[in-house]
């Protein structure tokens, strides 16, 4: 029995069918001294990837894979780095993607896999005009 119900899987599969570009989910976990949420994150990502062959999960060790950790500027685990056709989308998720976080993860995968950004043209223009680094951290809880 997976974490997703058969009904959820069917709906998710339908959404993911819009993907045209390969999406890689880099999952950084810490085996020793890490939290249970790394195991939960791995299970969830595995179930998503099983629904679409353009979505792949690559596991990284938060302690040992120092090169990738530095490359993607990952400073805590569990972390999910979302790549679109191998390129960093600069979208990260920290912690297990359950509850509301799961919806955010699926939306991020769809943006990475379709290249489509569902924003109002005016808002998009404002964002594209930003000419200095901007780091957003959005805190949420599963429920």
């Amino acid at each position: 029995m997976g974490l997703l119900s058969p009904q959820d899987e069917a709906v998710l599969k339908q959404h993911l069918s819009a993907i045209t570009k390969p999406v890689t989910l880099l999952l950084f976990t810490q085996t020793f001294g890490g939290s249970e949420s790394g195991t939960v994150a791995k299970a969830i990502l595995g179930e998503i990837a099983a629904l679409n062959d353009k979505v792949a999960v690559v596991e990284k060790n938060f302690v040992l894979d120092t090169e990738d950790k530095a490359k993607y500027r990952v400073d805590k685990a569990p972390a999910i780095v979302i790549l679109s056709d191998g390129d960093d989308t600069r979208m990260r998720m920290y912690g297990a993607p359950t509850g509301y976080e799961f919806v955010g993860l699926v939306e991020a995968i769809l943006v990475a896999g379709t290249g489509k950004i569902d924003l109002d043209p005016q808002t998009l223009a404002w964002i594209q005009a930003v000419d200095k680094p901007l780091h957003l951290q959005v805190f949420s809880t599963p429920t």
Partner: protein
Amino acid sequence: MAAANPLITADAVEATEFMDLTRKYRVTGVPKTVVNETIEILGGLPEQDFVRAALEMPDNEPPTTA
């Protein structure tokens, strides 16, 4: 936002998992967004209001990001 501009990085942080950050940024309610360590946006806002707040745009003015 991150997908639309290579200068933008967006982290979704599960607040109960990273209590040190939750304390550091005084997260007392969710969603809470912290931009560049300084700007704080509490709650879910309509798209344009959120982006205006994140970019510190004055009301009814075009963005000033320089």
